[in-house]
């Protein structure tokens, strides 16, 4: 399709506005993390790494990062196992209620976080606490897993649908048992989709705050919670900027990889 010069200029301007809309606030955070002034001022009065050094030494930040990483890894692990198992069941086998199940699996991502949060909170209070499981890391992991499963499920199910059954049939036809077929054909074909789903799941878990608030309890704090709690303290604001800047940079990588992996398809390099 070809466009006139005028149309191309207009589209360029529209794209620039859209990108500015998304990325200018992120740039402000990044610039501010190097700004020696404690309060926001434009233009920046200089360039300093003070806030970055302080953020790196801050105990609250360190423990919050640790908690978030643990919660993210735990939720991602559960999501990888359950999500891919459900994807197999839904795509590869025909059974009563399978469309209903696949809808129920996807639902949590559309459900408002606050609803999920309240539901989990009362479940923990009324069911898990009497069983001896109280608010803490485990409940955060369970809470995050509810929506992380969706991401793994969606990625793996889409890949399974696209590759179809015929490669597995070819493998069995050539003499491979079911186990050999899974190891040599099925798993290599879904591996990149599984990793992409896991990366997205981890990213989603890492910045989640609503469900976390309802499931964490008073004893632990994830990084988003720490940021939220310190944002309005004047002394901490510049450190928050530095932490946020690190997170932005740290998250570009997994999201970029996840996108490459899901595009790569069955013939991809992974």
């Amino acid at each position, binding site marked *: 399709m070809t466009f006139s010069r005028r149309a191309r200029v207009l589209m360029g301007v529209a794209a620039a506005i859209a990108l500015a809309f998304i990325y200018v606030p992120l740039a402000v955070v990044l610039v501010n993390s190097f700004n020696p002034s404690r309060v926001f001022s434009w233009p920046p009065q200089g360039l300093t790494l003070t806030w970055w050094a302080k953020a790196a030494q801050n105990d609250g930040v360190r423990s919050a990062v640790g908690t978030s990483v643990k919660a993210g890894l735990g939720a991602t692990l559960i999501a990888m196992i359950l999500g891919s198992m459900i994807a197999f069941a839904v795509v590869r086998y025909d059974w009563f209620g399978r469309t209903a199940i696949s809808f129920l699996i996807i639902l949590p991502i559309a459900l408002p976080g606050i609803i999920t949060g309240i539901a989990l909170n009362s479940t923990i209070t009324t069911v898990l606490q009497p069983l001896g499981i109280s608010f803490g890391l485990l409940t955060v992991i369970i809470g995050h897993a509810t929506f992380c499963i969706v991401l793994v499920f969606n990625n793996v199910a889409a890949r399974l649908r696209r590759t179809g059954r*015929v*490669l597995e*049939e*070819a*493998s069995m*036809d050539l*003499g*491979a048992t079911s186990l050999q077929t899974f190891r040599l*054909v099925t798993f290599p*074909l879904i591996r990149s989709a599984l990793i992409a789903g896991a990366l997205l799941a981890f990213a989603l878990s890492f910045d989640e705050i609503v469900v976390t608030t309802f499931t964490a309890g008073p004893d632990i704090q994830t990084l988003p919670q720490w940021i939220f709690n310190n944002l309005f303290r004047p002394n901490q604001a510049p450190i928050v900027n530095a932490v946020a800047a690190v997170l932005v940079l740290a998250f570009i990588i997994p999201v970029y990889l996840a996108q490459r992996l899901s595009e790569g398809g069955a013939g991809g390099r992974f």
Partner: protein
Amino acid sequence: MAGSESVDGAERGTLPADAVASSTDPGSAAPAIRLRGLRKEFGAVTAVDGVDLDVEDGEFLTLLGPSGSGKTTVLRMIAGFELPTSGLVELAGVDVSRKPPFDRDVNTVFQDYALFPHMSVQDNVEYGLRVRKVDRAQRSARAQEALATVRLSGYGTRRPNELSGGQRQRVALARALVNRPRVLLLDEPLGALDLKLREQMQLELKDIQREVGITFVFVTHDQEEALTMSDRIAVFNAGKIEQIGPPAQVYEKPATEFVAGFVGTSNLLSGDVARRVLGHDGTWSIRPEKITLSPSSPSAPTVPSPTSEVRFATGTIRDVVYLGDLTRFVVDLNGGGTLTAIEQNLDQSSADVLGLQGTNTTLEWQRKYEFRIA
């Protein structure tokens, strides 16, 4: 095949004796494949409705039929991807009806090749040997030999997505042949190729089959392909075999109206028209290329004589279709009925034949080319 129930029953009655006989005498005596009373139902749909079939060792058998006629389902039951609802699948005298695909000595070439996209060509071809724990040196040598058989030496390091359709097809063939199966099943393997390549691969497939001496069961809906390659053709319709025989027999002497219509084109004469033109009751088939046209001559007899070896019919040319090498004439017979005739364009141009539209003509054919099909 009316009353398939009773056929089933009769077959079951004879089975134990057969099974004993064949199990005590495996090897050359038992056919490569023996199907008895094979049925497959998907829910309320009967895809395969009582198929009996023997395929001899080293034979090239084609299952020919329109889509949905059950031919692919039969192939999938031989491979083990589908289990029959009832009936028997025997390979070299051994009942494999309930065995999984990896316990059957057959290999399949799939319609869209089903090459493993994450493996090189060499790894694809070695796959069957690898899962059977053949040692590395031997499987590499055998894979290279198989690639040479399909004329793809030197392509081992490529990925399937770097090959053309025809090359992928050959890799799929090599991947199956490397296992030296007793039977090779081919599910419309040429369907995705363009016409020129398809014709070339038809001849190559036939050559390779002669070379390796393996039984080939080939599924296609293309009657020309079936006629070109097969030792025998089984024509499928609505889950049943309508006719089975060598290509010439299926083409020249179609056993049913369906076969006459599906394999090539055919003139069917029945009822009043058959009585008037042929002097017989029943439904009869005449191939269009057996009929010749000549300008209408009043001397030609119009009443069929039971003794004459040559038939005549007069009529008006309604349609002329110029096909390049051939011309097809559709002729409305005087007194009702239609016959189609095909002539080679030996020394006539399109202008010549198109000018014949609307003129009177006399059709002529040998009586021996009339076949009764009902």
